[in-house]
């Protein structure tokens, strides 16, 4: 037998309290001088046997009352035969709804979205229960438990409406476990409706160990019921924004939009795409060949849209309406001023050239850490730093630049020293020219070393590194750093972290004859340009964000959809919004378009991520 308040079981000795009080009372008598003792003696003689029996019965009754009280407060849960005898009805059902964009897929046999079908099935299942338990709804967007009287009208609630967000299933289960632990929910079942998207479930995530630990620590056994909405999906095309750039062509300002097109079945060679720029729609037939491709469209914003605007890319309706459109906003055109600070003139020269590759953002001067205070920090969007930390004034300027949305790229100093934001540069390691350090692992999908717009990999594996410095993250935010690329021996080449609204990168080697072939430019130039692009956010009043991951600043005021779509919320719905002076394009998380499931077929309990706690039985409907 288990208890919801196991601590109170230790109060069981309190059941002996009546006996103790009885004995104490017998000791706590008062003395009365008495004359009629002869009657007392005979009365006691006559009463003793009956009185003793009566006293014992009273003591037993009081002790039992205490035991029942303690048992009631500690809330026992009966299992096995005892539980069967006591009844098998549930106390609480926690309904978890995956509201990711992929749940809007309409399966041909269902004629409704997976989400709607799941809600309908859950309501039917609830209706079949004899005694109605307490229903608590937790959706993947808000993850805030909400108690429902019944599930009949659940489908009409805004908290289960379609959204363009991704779903964090481990966090959703963690919220359910938290609720069960805090509210002592008694006999509980967790009903989870999901389409088993791998990007939402993240089966390899360490979060599963924590979730399973939470479920295992619950005082009561919990049953998990998975409503797997993973039927065969109809043909689907998903579009997402890959990149937005302001370019100049023929002296005219343009907006270059790169769109990733993902098709579940390559059954056609031309795809009708509708492009909307500042409210003006244009239809284009895009030749498509692969299942996944990047399509770049250069748009003329015209005079009205020269200083900024918004746009939308749409494909025809298909199996999932949620991934048929993506949105973008852009700011005014202009140079992206940056600063290069380097101890080594050779390295500084390479970095300055890489930053000036488009001819517009050439840093004025090459500065050293000692002279860094003279840099135009107010207008700069990015800084490339090779060397030790500067004086306090320059240090404050760099910190302010980064936290306000700028980008900082760090290269190793001449000697081991402390770096920016908790980074520690270690001793230099050298390799023989015949056996240089090689980069074998990097993120080719996102970040500084991602593929080019035309889908080609950067020649990272061709880099020849003769010298590198080990990078160690220290301080309380050490965990904020993550590795983007690493050498064959696992030593990081490139690491990254967010600081405020900006980003900080650090590279273990630097361009130069003694260090590496980064100076060839094939990797350094796109990497530096992307650093500048990240930093451009500091100057722009536009935000390109992922749904569910961005919230307008409180002072920005209420957000209004620019495409006249009513009732949309940037926290849940993709779209273009004006929030005060800011324009924001909010898109669904691109990963939700990748139809990869971690539980193929109907799924089996033994494929549950991590080790299911013995107390939490998993059942798949």
């Amino acid at each position, binding site marked *: 037998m288990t208890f919801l308040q196991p601590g109170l079981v230790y109060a069981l000795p309190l059941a002996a309290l009546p006996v103790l009080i009885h004995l104490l*009372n*017998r000791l*706590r*008598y*008062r*003395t*009365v*001088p*008495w*004359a*009629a*003792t*002869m*009657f*007392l*003696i*005979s*009365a*006691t003689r*006559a*009463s003793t046997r009956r*009185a003793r029996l*009566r*006293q014992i019965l009273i003591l037993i009754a009081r002790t039992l009352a205490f035991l029942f009280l303690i048992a009631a407060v500690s809330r026992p849960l009966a299992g096995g035969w005892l539980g069967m005898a006591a009844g098998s009805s549930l106390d609480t059902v926690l309904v978890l709804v995956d509201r990711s964009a992929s749940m809007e897929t309409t399966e041909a046999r269902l004629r409704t979205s997976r989400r709607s079908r799941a809600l309908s099935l859950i309501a039917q299942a609830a209706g079949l229960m004899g005694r109605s338990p307490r229903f608590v709804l937790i959706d993947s967007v808000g993850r805030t438990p909400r108690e429902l009287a019944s599930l009949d009208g659940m489908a009409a609630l805004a908290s289960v409406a379609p959204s363009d967000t991704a779903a964090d299933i481990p966090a959703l289960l963690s919220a359910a476990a938290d609720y069960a632990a805090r509210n002592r929910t008694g006999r509980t079942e967790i009903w989870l409706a999901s389409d088993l998207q791998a990007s939402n479930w993240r089966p390899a995530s360490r979060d599963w160990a924590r979730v399973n630990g939470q479920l295992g620590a619950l005082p009561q056994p919990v049953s998990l019921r998975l409503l797997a909405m993973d039927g065969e999906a109809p043909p689907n095309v998903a579009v997402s924004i890959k990149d937005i750039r302001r370019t100049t062509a023929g002296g005219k300002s343009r907006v270059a939009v790169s769109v990733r097109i993902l098709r579940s079945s390559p059954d056609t060679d031309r795809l009708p795409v509708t492009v909307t720029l500042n409210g003006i729609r244009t239809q284009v037939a895009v030749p498509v060949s692969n299942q996944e491709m990047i399509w770049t469209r250069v748009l003329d914003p015209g005079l009205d849209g020269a200083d900024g605007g918004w746009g939308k890319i749409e494909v025809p309706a298909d199996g999932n309406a949620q991934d048929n459109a993506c949105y973008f906003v852009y700011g005014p055109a202009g140079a992206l001023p940056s600063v290069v600070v380097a101890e080594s003139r050779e390295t500084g020269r390479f970095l300055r050239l890489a930053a000036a590759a488009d001819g517009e953002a050439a840093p004025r001067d090459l500065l050293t850490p000692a002279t860094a205070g003279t840099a135009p920090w107010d207008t700069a969007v990015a800084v490339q730093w090779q060397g030790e930390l500067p004086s306090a004034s320059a240090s404050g300027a760099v910190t302010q630049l980064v936290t306000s949305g700028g980008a900082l790229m760090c290269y190793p100093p001449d000697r081991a020293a402390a770096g920016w934001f908790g980074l520690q540069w270690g001793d230099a390691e050298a390799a023989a020219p015949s056996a240089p350090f090689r980069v074998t692992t990097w993120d080719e999908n996102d970040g500084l070393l991602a593929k080019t717009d035309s889908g080609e990999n950067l020649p990272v594996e061709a880099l020849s590194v003769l010298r590198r410095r080990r990078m160690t993250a220290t301080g309380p935010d050490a965990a904020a750093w993550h590795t983007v690329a690493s050498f064959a021996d696992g030593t990081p080449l490139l690491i990254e972290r967010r600081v405020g609204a900006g980003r900080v990168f650090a590279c273990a080697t630097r361009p130069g004859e003694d260090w590496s072939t980064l100076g060839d430019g094939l990797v350094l130039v796109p990497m530096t340009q992307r650093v500048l692009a990240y930093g451009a956010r500091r100057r722009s009043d536009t935000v390109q964000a992922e749904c569910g991951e961005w919230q307008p600043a409180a002072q920005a005021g209420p957000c209004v959809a620019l495409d006249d779509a009513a009732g949309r919320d940037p926290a849940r719905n993709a779209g273009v919004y004006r929030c005060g002076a800011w324009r924001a394009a909010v898109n669904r998380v691109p990963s939700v378009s990748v139809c990869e499931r971690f539980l193929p077929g109907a799924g089996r309990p033994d494929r549950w991520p991590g080790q299911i706690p013995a107390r939490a039985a998993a059942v798949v409907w």
Partner: protein
Amino acid sequence: MSHDAKRDFLDTAALSRLAALQVSARLPMLGSVTGIHRSATRGSSVEFAEYRKYAPGDDIRHVDWRVYGRTDRFYMKEFEADTNLRCYLALDVSASMGFGGASGTKFEYARRLAATLAHLLALQGDAVGLLGFAERTVREIPPRHSPAHLRHVYDALAELKPAGASAIADRLHDLAERVRHRALVIVFSDFFAEPDALLDSFQHMRFRKHDLAVFHLLDRQEAAFAFDRPIRFADLETPFALITDPAVIRDNYLNEFNRHLETLQRGSREFQVDYRRVFTDADYEKVLAAFLLDRMRK
């Protein structure tokens, strides 16, 4: 200590109010002097008693000649003899008499009754004596009818204190044997003793032709037994103590107590003992008045 303080059991106002009443004997007494009480022998009072046949040796002055004239038979005319009364005030001074609440102890109440009766008896010229007893006789003053004798009785009452165990039945047997002439014996006690032994002593007293009156003195607490928490009852007469829960034994206690009272009352009626049950919170003046009036009526 002044006399007034020592004799706080005397209430002069009550004495004066009760003076109009007299202590009457319910049975003929054998007194040495003339008094207000009927004598056991025929005497020379004016009150006709009965006729009886003449026997040789009778004083012919008492022959009723009128009857002889009508019937030719000699009948002797007899008259009641009035004599005085010997009264023993027997006061139980065992420790149990020291029990009492706010209204005072049973001993104090008994002493007040005894003192008042002593005063009334002396006032009507009767001889009054005092017997203070517990396990043994503590103090004894033989009956006298001189006015100065009353002071000795008061002094003795003032000096008595409740102490020791009780052997009331033995003491009453002893008194019954020692008092040779008929007497009025008034006993003040709580009678916490075996009822059979008590009734034996009553019967013995009556067998010796004594007029026996008993004041059964009780405290309300003894009769109600209204306690709620466990209590250690310490016996007043012995070192015995009993720890018990009064709520548990209350019913049985009251049964035993009431049975005892009933036995005594029934036995007293059987042996023509003037039995008076008195609670110490009752007005002693009313108790005495009722006692005296009842006896005067009989």
